[in-house]
Protein backbone atom coordinates (compact mmCIF):
# COMPACT_ATOMS: atom_id res chain seq x y z
CA UNK A 1 0.00 0.00 0.00
CA UNK A 2 1.56 3.34 -0.99
CA UNK A 3 1.29 6.34 1.27
CA UNK A 4 -1.67 7.88 -0.59
CA UNK A 5 -3.67 4.68 -0.24
CA UNK A 6 -2.65 4.49 3.41
CA UNK A 7 -3.85 8.05 3.99
CA UNK A 8 -7.15 7.32 2.26
CA UNK A 9 -7.62 4.16 4.31
CA UNK A 10 -7.09 6.10 7.52
CA UNK A 11 -9.38 8.93 6.48
CA UNK A 12 -12.12 6.45 5.67
CA UNK A 13 -11.94 5.30 9.29
CA UNK A 14 -13.04 8.75 10.48
CA UNK A 15 -16.78 7.98 10.71
CA UNK A 16 -16.12 4.90 12.82
CA UNK A 17 -13.53 6.63 14.99
CA UNK A 18 -15.90 9.54 15.59
CA UNK A 19 -18.70 7.17 16.58
CA UNK A 20 -16.37 5.99 19.35
CA UNK A 21 -15.68 9.56 20.51
CA UNK A 22 -18.94 10.75 22.09
CA UNK A 23 -17.37 13.82 23.71
CA UNK A 24 -16.16 15.02 20.32
CA UNK A 25 -19.59 14.40 18.80
CA UNK A 26 -21.11 16.41 21.63
CA UNK A 27 -18.74 19.29 21.00
CA UNK A 28 -19.85 19.38 17.38
CA UNK A 29 -23.57 19.24 18.10
CA UNK A 30 -24.18 22.68 16.55
CA UNK A 31 -22.27 21.80 13.39
CA UNK A 32 -23.82 20.58 10.14
CA UNK A 33 -21.72 21.03 7.01
CA UNK A 34 -20.50 19.48 3.77
CA UNK A 35 -16.71 19.75 3.43
CA UNK A 36 -13.81 18.15 1.62
CA UNK A 37 -10.85 16.36 3.12
CA UNK A 38 -8.09 14.32 1.58
CA UNK A 39 -4.98 14.55 -0.53
CA UNK A 40 -4.69 16.83 -3.57
CA UNK A 41 -6.55 15.27 -6.47
CA UNK A 42 -8.33 12.71 -4.31
CA UNK A 43 -10.64 14.48 -1.88
CA UNK A 44 -13.57 13.00 -0.03
CA UNK A 45 -16.79 14.84 0.66
CA UNK A 46 -17.90 14.52 4.24
CA UNK A 47 -21.40 15.32 5.45
CA UNK A 48 -21.55 16.21 9.14
CA UNK A 49 -24.90 16.56 10.85
CA UNK A 50 -24.99 17.77 14.44
CA UNK A 51 -21.44 16.64 15.04
CA UNK A 52 -21.74 13.17 13.49
CA UNK A 53 -20.45 12.02 10.12
CA UNK A 54 -23.48 10.75 8.25
CA UNK A 55 -21.87 10.37 4.82
CA UNK A 56 -18.35 10.19 3.41
CA UNK A 57 -17.67 9.43 -0.22
CA UNK A 58 -15.34 10.38 -3.05
CA UNK A 59 -16.01 13.98 -4.02
CA UNK A 60 -17.88 14.34 -7.29
CA UNK A 61 -15.67 15.40 -10.21
CA UNK A 62 -18.23 17.94 -11.41
CA UNK A 63 -20.67 20.22 -9.60
CA UNK A 64 -19.21 19.37 -6.22
CA UNK A 65 -20.82 21.50 -3.52
CA UNK A 66 -18.92 22.09 -0.29
CA UNK A 67 -18.18 24.88 2.20
CA UNK A 68 -14.46 24.37 2.76
CA UNK A 69 -11.69 21.94 1.86
CA UNK A 70 -8.64 20.78 3.81
CA UNK A 71 -6.16 18.89 1.66
CA UNK A 72 -2.67 17.80 2.59
CA UNK A 73 0.07 15.90 0.82
CA UNK A 74 0.24 12.21 1.79
CA UNK A 75 3.55 12.62 3.62
CA UNK A 76 2.07 15.50 5.62
CA UNK A 77 -0.83 13.33 6.80
CA UNK A 78 1.52 10.53 7.72
CA UNK A 79 3.79 12.85 9.71
CA UNK A 80 0.75 14.46 11.36
CA UNK A 81 -0.48 11.06 12.47
CA UNK A 82 2.78 9.96 14.06
CA UNK A 83 2.42 9.19 17.78
CA UNK A 84 4.83 12.06 18.50
CA UNK A 85 4.79 14.19 15.36
CA UNK A 86 7.84 16.22 14.50
CA UNK A 87 7.72 19.95 15.18
CA UNK A 88 5.99 21.76 12.35
CA UNK A 89 4.03 18.66 11.34
CA UNK A 90 1.94 18.38 14.49
CA UNK A 91 -1.03 20.66 13.79
CA UNK A 92 -3.42 21.29 10.89
CA UNK A 93 -2.42 24.95 10.69
CA UNK A 94 1.27 24.15 11.05
CA UNK A 95 0.84 22.13 7.85
CA UNK A 96 -0.87 25.01 6.03
CA UNK A 97 1.80 27.45 7.21
CA UNK A 98 4.59 25.26 5.85
CA UNK A 99 2.74 24.73 2.56
CA UNK A 100 2.14 21.01 3.06
CA UNK A 101 -1.64 21.49 3.20
CA UNK A 102 -4.23 23.86 1.78
CA UNK A 103 -7.35 25.27 3.40
CA UNK A 104 -9.83 26.79 0.97
CA UNK A 105 -13.42 27.93 0.69
CA UNK A 106 -15.76 29.46 3.25
CA UNK A 107 -13.73 29.00 6.43
CA UNK A 108 -16.46 30.03 8.86
CA UNK A 109 -17.58 26.53 9.86
CA UNK A 110 -13.95 25.44 10.17
CA UNK A 111 -12.87 28.35 12.39
CA UNK A 112 -16.06 28.36 14.46
CA UNK A 113 -15.45 24.66 15.21
CA UNK A 114 -11.68 24.66 14.98
CA UNK A 115 -10.88 22.42 17.95
CA UNK A 116 -13.50 19.94 16.74
CA UNK A 117 -11.82 19.65 13.34
CA UNK A 118 -8.34 19.49 14.86
CA UNK A 119 -9.39 16.66 17.13
CA UNK A 120 -11.43 14.89 14.46
CA UNK A 121 -8.56 14.77 11.99
CA UNK A 122 -6.16 13.65 14.72
CA UNK A 123 -8.29 10.59 15.51
CA UNK A 124 -6.31 8.31 13.16
CA UNK A 125 -3.11 9.20 15.04
CA UNK A 126 -1.51 6.09 16.44
CA UNK A 127 -1.68 5.69 20.16
CA UNK A 128 1.74 6.01 21.72
CA UNK A 129 3.26 2.74 22.82
Amino acid sequence: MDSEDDVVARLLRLPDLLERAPALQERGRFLSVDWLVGVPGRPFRVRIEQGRIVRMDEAPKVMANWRFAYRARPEAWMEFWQPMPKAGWHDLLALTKRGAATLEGDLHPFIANLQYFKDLLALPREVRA
Partner: protein
Amino acid sequence: MSTTVPAPIEPMIGRYVTFPIEGRPHRVYFEEAGAGIPLVCLHTAGSDGRQWRHLMTDPEITQHFRVIAFDLPFHGKSNPPEDWDGTEYRLTTAAYTATIRAFCGALRLEKPVVMGCSIGGRIVLNLAIDHAAEFSALIGLEAADFQQPWYDTEWLNRPDVHGGEACAALVSGLMSPDLPPARRMETLWHYKQSGPGVFKGDLYFYRVDGDLRGRTAAIDTKVCPLYLLTGEYDYSCSPDDTLRTARSISGAQVTVMERLGHFPMSENPEQFRRYIAPVLDDVRRRASQP
Protein backbone atom coordinates in the same frame (compact mmCIF):
# COMPACT_ATOMS: atom_id res chain seq x y z
CA MET B 1 -11.19 21.59 65.72
CA SER B 2 -10.08 19.80 62.57
CA THR B 3 -7.25 17.31 62.89
CA THR B 4 -6.61 17.14 59.18
CA VAL B 5 -3.44 18.46 57.62
CA PRO B 6 -3.82 22.16 56.72
CA ALA B 7 -4.54 22.78 53.05
CA PRO B 8 -1.46 24.10 51.28
CA ILE B 9 -1.54 27.84 50.56
CA GLU B 10 0.67 28.95 47.70
CA PRO B 11 3.22 31.68 48.42
CA MET B 12 2.26 34.28 45.81
CA ILE B 13 0.35 37.37 46.85
CA GLY B 14 -1.89 39.36 44.51
CA ARG B 15 -2.41 43.12 44.81
CA TYR B 16 -3.52 46.12 42.76
CA VAL B 17 -1.49 49.20 41.98
CA THR B 18 -2.76 52.35 40.26
CA PHE B 19 -0.40 54.42 38.15
CA PRO B 20 -0.53 56.48 34.94
CA ILE B 21 0.27 54.94 31.57
CA GLU B 22 0.70 57.53 28.83
CA GLY B 23 -1.09 60.02 31.08
CA ARG B 24 -4.14 57.87 31.89
CA PRO B 25 -4.54 56.24 35.30
CA HIS B 26 -4.67 52.44 35.22
CA ARG B 27 -5.45 50.00 38.01
CA VAL B 28 -3.19 47.04 37.41
CA TYR B 29 -3.25 43.64 39.07
CA PHE B 30 -0.01 41.86 39.85
CA GLU B 31 1.14 38.80 41.74
CA GLU B 32 4.51 38.25 43.30
CA ALA B 33 6.50 35.73 45.28
CA GLY B 34 10.05 35.55 46.55
CA ALA B 35 12.75 38.02 47.40
CA GLY B 36 15.93 39.22 45.74
CA ILE B 37 16.52 40.33 42.18
CA PRO B 38 13.23 41.66 40.75
CA LEU B 39 12.11 39.48 37.85
CA VAL B 40 9.15 40.99 35.97
CA CYS B 41 7.31 38.43 33.85
CA LEU B 42 5.18 39.37 30.81
CA HIS B 43 2.36 37.10 29.67
CA THR B 44 1.48 36.16 26.09
CA ALA B 45 -1.13 37.86 23.90
CA GLY B 46 -4.70 37.26 25.04
CA SER B 47 -3.70 35.62 28.31
CA ASP B 48 -2.67 36.91 31.74
CA GLY B 49 -0.13 36.63 34.53
CA ARG B 50 -1.41 33.27 35.77
CA GLN B 51 0.85 31.71 33.14
CA TRP B 52 3.77 32.32 35.53
CA ARG B 53 2.35 30.62 38.60
CA HIS B 54 4.76 27.69 38.48
CA LEU B 55 7.77 29.97 38.59
CA MET B 56 6.30 31.65 41.68
CA THR B 57 5.96 28.37 43.51
CA ASP B 58 9.50 27.21 42.75
CA PRO B 59 11.47 27.83 45.96
CA GLU B 60 14.82 27.44 44.25
CA ILE B 61 13.92 30.40 42.07
CA THR B 62 12.04 32.53 44.60
CA GLN B 63 14.86 32.31 47.13
CA HIS B 64 16.93 34.43 44.76
CA PHE B 65 14.33 36.32 42.73
CA ARG B 66 11.32 38.47 43.50
CA VAL B 67 9.11 37.06 40.74
CA ILE B 68 6.44 39.55 39.69
CA ALA B 69 3.77 39.07 37.00
CA PHE B 70 1.26 41.77 36.15
CA ASP B 71 -1.80 41.60 33.94
CA LEU B 72 -1.70 44.08 31.08
CA PRO B 73 -4.68 46.47 31.06
CA PHE B 74 -7.76 44.68 29.59
CA HIS B 75 -6.23 41.32 30.64
CA GLY B 76 -6.87 39.07 33.62
CA LYS B 77 -7.83 41.18 36.63
CA SER B 78 -6.54 44.47 35.20
CA ASN B 79 -9.50 46.47 33.96
CA PRO B 80 -9.55 48.80 31.00
CA PRO B 81 -8.88 52.39 32.10
CA GLU B 82 -11.76 54.24 33.75
CA ASP B 83 -12.30 56.49 30.73
CA TRP B 84 -12.48 53.62 28.21
CA ASP B 85 -15.44 54.21 25.90
CA GLY B 86 -15.71 50.74 24.39
CA THR B 87 -13.42 51.43 21.44
CA GLU B 88 -11.78 48.25 20.15
CA TYR B 89 -8.63 47.54 22.15
CA ARG B 90 -5.32 47.83 20.32
CA LEU B 91 -1.88 47.38 21.82
CA THR B 92 0.90 49.49 20.35
CA THR B 93 4.65 49.31 20.76
CA ALA B 94 4.66 52.68 22.51
CA ALA B 95 1.85 51.77 24.93
CA TYR B 96 3.33 48.38 25.75
CA THR B 97 6.78 49.84 26.39
CA ALA B 98 5.29 52.64 28.50
CA THR B 99 3.25 50.14 30.53
CA ILE B 100 6.26 48.04 31.48
CA ARG B 101 8.40 51.05 32.39
CA ALA B 102 5.55 52.65 34.36
CA PHE B 103 4.88 49.40 36.25
CA CYS B 104 8.55 49.03 37.17
CA GLY B 105 8.59 52.66 38.25
CA ALA B 106 5.40 52.32 40.29
CA LEU B 107 6.92 49.43 42.23
CA ARG B 108 10.27 51.25 42.46
CA LEU B 109 12.10 48.27 41.04
CA GLU B 110 15.85 48.80 40.82
CA LYS B 111 17.19 47.53 37.47
CA PRO B 112 14.81 44.58 37.22
CA VAL B 113 15.18 41.58 34.97
CA VAL B 114 12.31 41.40 32.47
CA MET B 115 11.24 38.08 30.97
CA GLY B 116 8.47 38.10 28.39
CA CYS B 117 6.85 35.46 26.24
CA SER B 118 5.52 35.86 22.69
CA ILE B 119 4.35 39.50 22.54
CA GLY B 120 6.28 39.77 25.79
CA GLY B 121 9.32 38.37 24.03
CA ARG B 122 8.93 40.86 21.20
CA ILE B 123 8.67 43.84 23.55
CA VAL B 124 11.73 42.60 25.42
CA LEU B 125 13.64 43.16 22.17
CA ASN B 126 12.25 46.67 22.02
CA LEU B 127 13.34 47.29 25.61
CA ALA B 128 16.80 46.05 24.64
CA ILE B 129 16.89 48.47 21.72
CA ASP B 130 15.65 51.60 23.47
CA HIS B 131 15.96 51.17 27.25
CA ALA B 132 18.65 48.57 27.94
CA ALA B 133 20.33 50.57 30.71
CA GLU B 134 17.17 50.37 32.84
CA PHE B 135 17.38 46.57 33.16
CA SER B 136 19.93 44.13 34.53
CA ALA B 137 18.97 41.36 32.08
CA LEU B 138 16.34 40.72 29.42
CA ILE B 139 14.90 37.31 28.58
CA GLY B 140 12.77 36.75 25.50
CA LEU B 141 10.77 33.54 25.26
CA GLU B 142 9.33 32.76 21.83
CA ALA B 143 10.83 36.05 20.69
CA ALA B 144 11.73 37.29 17.23
CA ASP B 145 11.88 40.58 15.37
CA PHE B 146 8.96 39.44 13.17
CA GLN B 147 6.95 36.32 12.34
CA GLN B 148 4.98 35.48 9.23
CA PRO B 149 1.20 35.54 9.94
CA TRP B 150 -0.50 32.16 9.67
CA TYR B 151 -4.17 33.10 10.05
CA ASP B 152 -6.49 36.07 9.62
CA THR B 153 -7.03 37.88 12.93
CA GLU B 154 -10.47 39.08 11.74
CA TRP B 155 -11.80 35.70 12.95
CA LEU B 156 -10.91 36.53 16.53
CA ASN B 157 -13.62 39.05 17.36
CA ARG B 158 -16.92 38.79 15.51
CA PRO B 159 -20.40 37.88 16.71
CA ASP B 160 -20.75 34.66 14.69
CA VAL B 161 -17.60 33.01 16.08
CA HIS B 162 -17.08 32.31 19.78
CA GLY B 163 -13.94 34.33 20.44
CA GLY B 164 -12.77 32.37 23.46
CA GLU B 165 -13.15 29.02 21.73
CA ALA B 166 -11.57 30.22 18.49
CA CYS B 167 -8.60 31.89 20.22
CA ALA B 168 -7.94 28.80 22.32
CA ALA B 169 -8.26 26.44 19.35
CA LEU B 170 -5.90 28.54 17.25
CA VAL B 171 -3.14 28.50 19.86
CA SER B 172 -3.76 24.89 20.89
CA GLY B 173 -1.46 23.65 18.14
CA LEU B 174 1.47 25.74 19.33
CA MET B 175 2.30 23.35 22.17
CA SER B 176 4.28 20.13 22.22
CA PRO B 177 2.04 17.09 21.60
CA ASP B 178 3.35 15.26 24.69
CA LEU B 179 2.75 17.95 27.29
CA PRO B 180 0.85 17.17 30.50
CA PRO B 181 -2.88 17.28 29.58
CA ALA B 182 -3.79 19.36 32.65
CA ARG B 183 -1.24 22.01 31.73
CA ARG B 184 -2.54 22.11 28.18
CA MET B 185 -6.11 22.62 29.35
CA GLU B 186 -5.07 25.30 31.84
CA THR B 187 -3.07 27.19 29.23
CA LEU B 188 -6.05 27.13 26.88
CA TRP B 189 -8.48 28.11 29.65
CA HIS B 190 -6.69 31.45 30.02
CA TYR B 191 -7.42 32.10 26.34
CA LYS B 192 -11.04 31.10 26.71
CA GLN B 193 -11.40 33.63 29.54
CA SER B 194 -9.91 36.55 27.66
CA GLY B 195 -12.14 39.56 26.96
CA PRO B 196 -13.63 40.04 23.49
CA GLY B 197 -11.10 41.40 21.03
CA VAL B 198 -8.21 41.43 23.49
CA PHE B 199 -6.16 38.72 21.75
CA LYS B 200 -6.81 40.44 18.44
CA GLY B 201 -5.79 43.78 19.91
CA ASP B 202 -2.53 42.33 21.21
CA LEU B 203 -1.80 40.92 17.79
CA TYR B 204 -2.01 44.42 16.33
CA PHE B 205 1.24 45.04 18.18
CA TYR B 206 2.62 41.65 17.22
CA ARG B 207 1.84 41.76 13.52
CA VAL B 208 1.51 45.39 12.52
CA ASP B 209 2.98 47.92 14.90
CA GLY B 210 5.83 45.97 16.46
CA ASP B 211 7.85 44.91 13.43
CA LEU B 212 11.45 45.18 14.63
CA ARG B 213 13.16 43.97 11.48
CA GLY B 214 16.22 46.08 10.84
CA ARG B 215 16.35 47.48 14.37
CA THR B 216 17.72 44.64 16.48
CA ALA B 217 21.33 45.17 15.37
CA ALA B 218 21.28 48.23 17.63
CA ILE B 219 21.04 46.03 20.73
CA ASP B 220 24.16 46.22 22.88
CA THR B 221 24.32 43.13 25.09
CA LYS B 222 27.25 44.61 27.01
CA VAL B 223 24.81 47.18 28.42
CA CYS B 224 22.23 44.52 29.24
CA PRO B 225 22.58 40.78 28.60
CA LEU B 226 19.92 39.25 26.35
CA TYR B 227 18.75 35.64 26.45
CA LEU B 228 16.41 34.17 23.82
CA LEU B 229 14.74 30.80 24.33
CA THR B 230 12.23 29.28 21.91
CA GLY B 231 10.34 26.00 21.99
CA GLU B 232 10.80 23.65 19.07
CA TYR B 233 7.03 23.12 18.66
CA ASP B 234 6.27 26.84 18.33
CA TYR B 235 5.42 27.33 14.68
CA SER B 236 4.14 30.87 15.29
CA CYS B 237 7.51 32.14 16.49
CA SER B 238 9.64 29.28 15.27
CA PRO B 239 13.20 28.51 16.36
CA ASP B 240 14.28 29.70 12.90
CA ASP B 241 12.64 33.08 13.57
CA THR B 242 14.53 33.42 16.84
CA LEU B 243 17.82 32.23 15.37
CA ARG B 244 17.46 34.66 12.47
CA THR B 245 16.84 37.49 14.93
CA ALA B 246 19.76 36.48 17.13
CA ARG B 247 22.18 36.53 14.21
CA SER B 248 21.76 40.30 14.10
CA ILE B 249 22.50 40.75 17.83
CA SER B 250 26.07 40.39 18.96
CA GLY B 251 26.27 38.54 22.27
CA ALA B 252 22.66 37.29 22.36
CA GLN B 253 22.45 33.85 23.94
CA VAL B 254 20.01 31.53 22.18
CA THR B 255 18.50 28.24 23.28
CA VAL B 256 16.06 26.04 21.37
CA MET B 257 13.97 24.18 23.93
CA GLU B 258 12.98 20.60 23.15
CA ARG B 259 9.47 19.29 23.84
CA LEU B 260 8.17 22.81 24.40
CA GLY B 261 6.09 25.20 22.34
CA HIS B 262 4.78 28.76 22.54
CA PHE B 263 3.88 28.69 26.26
CA PRO B 264 6.85 27.02 27.95
CA MET B 265 6.18 28.35 31.47
CA SER B 266 2.60 27.11 31.57
CA GLU B 267 2.46 24.17 29.14
CA ASN B 268 5.22 22.13 30.76
CA PRO B 269 6.78 23.89 33.77
CA GLU B 270 9.13 21.03 34.63
CA GLN B 271 10.57 20.87 31.14
CA PHE B 272 10.84 24.69 31.04
CA ARG B 273 12.69 24.67 34.33
CA ARG B 274 15.54 22.69 32.76
CA TYR B 275 16.16 25.60 30.44
CA ILE B 276 15.30 28.68 32.48
CA ALA B 277 17.08 27.70 35.71
CA PRO B 278 20.58 27.89 34.14
CA VAL B 279 19.69 31.24 32.58
CA LEU B 280 18.56 32.62 35.93
CA ASP B 281 21.72 31.23 37.54
CA ASP B 282 23.74 33.14 34.95
CA VAL B 283 21.72 36.31 35.62
CA ARG B 284 22.42 35.92 39.32
CA ARG B 285 26.12 35.30 38.74
CA ARG B 286 26.38 38.47 36.64
CA ALA B 287 24.44 40.45 39.24
CA SER B 288 26.89 39.43 41.96
CA GLN B 289 29.86 40.69 39.97
CA PRO B 290 30.99 44.21 40.85
